[in-house]
């Protein structure tokens, strides 16, 4: 196996891990109890996939690092997730815009990987794609409910889509580039139903796959890693 495989699997695992950590921040703070449970469940799905991907990445690397080493003992510059997942949750509309864009991408990606040549990755993706279908449905439902809701909810959902849109370009760097066409078809359908306008493409921040991140990731990692760093090897 080449380094490319390690970096790629690590990137997918980091996307899921950081998305899980961000979604988990809503636990006990969501606008209603059902939503609290929903976001925690989606976070749990992401975490489950992250564990399997990071375990596999560690094996590909061959230096004896397990899922915990990779999650808890790397610094920000060593993370390979896209910046989209590390951005602060913002208001509920921003969280839903992030989740919609991420889960449509993940669903297409897992679908492709499930019939790919790497049997280990195919197994993980075959499992994950069923779960990501629910994430797509859930975030699309909210995008429509807020976008096609009151003047206030529409304005905030549109502002969220506008703010997050530039970060979606990074999803399609490298091997995932061919997926953007299908991604746009799906996202356009949701935006249209939600009476939202797709922002113009312009500024396209990137670099997450090379370890270039926003300040938001450093704060997230401080929170996520503090226990393991303070008590190395701690278990329940």
């Amino acid at each position, binding site marked *: 196996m080449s380094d490319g495989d390690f970096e790629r699997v690590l990137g997918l695992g980091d996307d899921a891990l950081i998305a899980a950590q961000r979604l988990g921040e809503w636990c006990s703070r969501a606008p209603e109890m*059902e939503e609290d449970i929903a976001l925690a469940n989606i976070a749990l799905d992401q975490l489950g996939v992250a564990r*399997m991907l990071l375990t596999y990445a560690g094996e590909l690397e061959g230096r004896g690092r397990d899922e915990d080493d990779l999650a808890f003992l790397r610094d920000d510059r060593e993370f390979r997730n896209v910046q989209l997942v590390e951005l602060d949750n913002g208001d509920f509309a921003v969280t839903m815009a992030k989740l919609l864009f991420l889960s449509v991408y993940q669903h297409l990606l897992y679908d492709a990987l499930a019939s790919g040549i790497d049997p280990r990755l195919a197994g993980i993706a075959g499992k*994950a794609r069923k779960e990501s279908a629910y994430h797509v449905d859930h975030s699309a439902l909210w995008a429509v409910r807020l976008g096609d809701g009151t003047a206030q909810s529409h304005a905030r959902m549109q502002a969220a889509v506008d703010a997050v849109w530039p970060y979606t370009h990074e999803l399609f760097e490298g091997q995932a580039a061919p997926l953007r066409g299908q991604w746009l078809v799906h996202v356009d359908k949701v935006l249209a139903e939600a009476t939202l306008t797709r922002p113009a493409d312009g500024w396209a921040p990137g670099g997450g796959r090379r370890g270039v991140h926003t300040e938001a990731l450093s704060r997230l990692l401080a929170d996520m890693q503090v226990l393991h760093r303070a008590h190395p090897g701690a278990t329940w």
Partner: protein
Amino acid sequence: MVTVREAVSAVRDPEIRVITIAELGILRDVTLVDGHVTVTITPTYSGCPAMDVIRQDIVAAAHDAGYDDVDVRTVLAEPWSTDWISDEGRAKLAAAGIAPPSKRAAALTLSVRCPLCGSPDTEQLSRFGSTACKSLWRCRACREPFDLVKTI
């Protein structure tokens, strides 16, 4: 004397206690070679937090049946589907007030029946429920909330 397969098959799901791991369809295989037991399981959802407890319970059940040399393997392919829940398992879920999933081929056409009063007049409150594998519903007839095992 129960066989190791019977002992492992009887392990209950730690979050839905009325159903066994065999009835839930997550127990894929039990083999016994020269006193060494290999149990193969598959998760319902990637992040199912019950998997660690299920592994421990399998080892304990095999131990009680007289087998101490046990490996529990986890496989992902074929991915678990609610179609693998046995008819007996579905009946037990319903009896416990948890609506069983419909078969995937019929998922789009059948309405969800209230497991408490049997009315088809039900509504979904949330796609996500008390565990990763369930969604939250309410019956419009008897007004009771209930869980539904999501069809995947």
